[in-house]
């Protein structure tokens, strides 16, 4: 396995603000800290050549996980091994094997032309001229790099700059590339170009890609496998198809109920089946179709709420994901 993650956890310590003068004086001598578990005992492996999506709501622990995988952040406990390297301990050797893009945070030289930035990176990462030229040719073909190759980075549009950032991350033919929100703020055309480039590099060069994104389009179009993380815990690890069946089969039931009873019905369903994705949409209650809840049982549960209409609805991937987050929230509340 190229990436091995075992029992990975990260605790953040934040000082507790003193509330009165007594506490303030005590704080001067010895501050009190609160420990918050940002990532909790996460396990997964990724094989060479895979393109994996790491998704989850805001504050789920995605960025912390990526930071630990890239050697930026030291795990509080657990183990990370990427391409045989310990990311923190072997930082200088390790970063030659990886490429990293943090959305909207540039790694290029602001006042220099793109060409010069790439050539500096070529020297820094010790990329042989032939390999460098081959990569550039690929970027020229796939990302129309020539349009802005000679221009200073500061004059590029966000989309052009992000294309250059992606290209820069793949420049030294790394074994694995970590992309944290690479398409944030981009228009449709730029997103399509960006995804085309990433897919090409993943499929043709066999570069392993781990991508986090809130844009489900990135996940659907690029990845074969999904890691779903929420509240620091890995909630799902499997293929996209598996996920569809896990979060229902991608088809939901929509039941029209008496408007003042929708909320009560939702509570009843959650109490009956805590992991079941359910959500309100006006006077409709939508419930994921799931093997563990046969149709007859569902009808029985809904009967007291005056069902006036029932229809199957196709769910987009985004809605499935949303449903999954909601179900987790409900689980936490319960």
């Amino acid at each position: 396995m190229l990436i091995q993650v075992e029992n990975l956890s990260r605790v953040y310590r934040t000082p507790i603000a003193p509330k009165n003068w007594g506490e303030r004086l005590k704080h001067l001598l010895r501050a009190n800290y609160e420990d918050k578990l940002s990532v909790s005992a996460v396990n997964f492996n990724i094989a060479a050549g895979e393109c994996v999506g790491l998704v989850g709501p805001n504050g789920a622990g995605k960025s912390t996980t990526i930071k630990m995988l890239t050697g930026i952040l030291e795990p509080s406990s657990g183990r990370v091994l990427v391409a045989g390297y310990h990311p923190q301990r072997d930082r200088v050797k390790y970063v030659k094997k990886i490429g990293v893009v943090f959305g909207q945070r540039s790694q290029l030289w602001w006042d220099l032309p793109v060409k010069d930035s790439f050539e500096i990176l070529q020297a820094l990462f010790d990329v042989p001229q032939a390999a460098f030229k081959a990569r550039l040719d690929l970027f020229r073909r796939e990302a129309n790099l020539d349009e802005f190759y000679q221009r200073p980075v500061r004059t590029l549009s966000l989309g052009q700059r992000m294309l250059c950032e992606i290209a820069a991350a793949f420049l030294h033919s790394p074994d694995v590339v970590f992309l944290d929100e690479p398409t944030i703020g981009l228009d449709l055309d730029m997103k399509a170009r960006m995804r085309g480039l990433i897919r090409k590099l993943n499929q043709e060069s066999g570069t392993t890609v781990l991508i986090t994104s809130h844009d489900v389009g990135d996940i659907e179009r690029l990845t074969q496998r999904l890691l779903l993380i929420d509240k620091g815990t890995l909630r799902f690890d499997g293929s996209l198809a598996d996920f569809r069946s896990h979060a229902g089969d991608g088809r939901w039931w929509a039941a029209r109920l008496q408007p003042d009873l929708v909320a009560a019905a939702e509570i009843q369903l959650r109490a009956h089946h805590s992991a079941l994705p359910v959500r309100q949409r006006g006077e409709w209650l939508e419930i994921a179709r799931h093997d563990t809840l046969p149709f007859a049982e569902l009808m029985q549960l809904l009967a007291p709420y005056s069902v006036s209409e029932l229809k199957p609805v196709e769910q987009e991937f985004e809605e499935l994901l949303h449903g999954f987050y909601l179900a987790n929230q409900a689980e936490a509340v319960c």
Partner: protein
Amino acid sequence: MQLSPFWRAYRRMVGSEARARLEHRADFALMILGVAATSLSTAATLYFMLGATGTIAGWHRGELIFMQGFMFCIFAPQSACYNGMFWLEHWLKTGAFLRFYTRPANPLLLLALERFHPQGFVVLAIGLAYCLFGLWGSPLLSEPLFYLGFVLLLPLSALVLWVINLAAISTCFWIGESDPVFSMSGKLTDMSRYPLDLFPKLATMIFMALPLAGTVWWPCQALLRGASLPLTVLGMAALAVICVGLLNGMWQRGMRRYAGAGG
């Protein structure tokens, strides 16, 4: 000889940055104007302050001007090679600093890789001119040992000054805004261009501890006042090594803290 990857990258960056800076002629002219105005006003202040007597507590105008010039000379390397350090706080706030973790070299070297500014050469030229002007007519200028001492001590003092300035700026790893710290250390650095024996004992001790005495005072004791050159060179070399080691440690701690600060 084959250069290591970092130095090859550095050479490319220097070439490219110098080209980019010189392309904006108006900017470059303004930059030279800034360096000239700052250095001229500092020297003229000293010149007029001394007035007709030309001395201050036994130090002659020429020696004092040499000390000012020496300060310019040791500032020149960071003005050229570490111009990027003034952006540190901005990079930390915007997250652009993360690139320091994902490049294969020591972060302090990577900071030099961020930016190069040819204005350093202007600062060096002005500094050397002041040194020469200060010592014009002095027998020191005909002593080969003086030149040897100057060449040996200049880079060591430059390292010490670089460490002091960068350490002041790097406090932003902990306190967010390093401007007040930098302005405070800047005021002390400004005063360390004068002979330290003008100030009270406590001030001298502060200058030695920080160690601002390593920027101009100790080297000038050897260059102008006959203190042992070999001992001064050795002492300054040890000081520079310790300073750089401490700064490296400070950065490692700062980077660990920064990485652990966000979500």
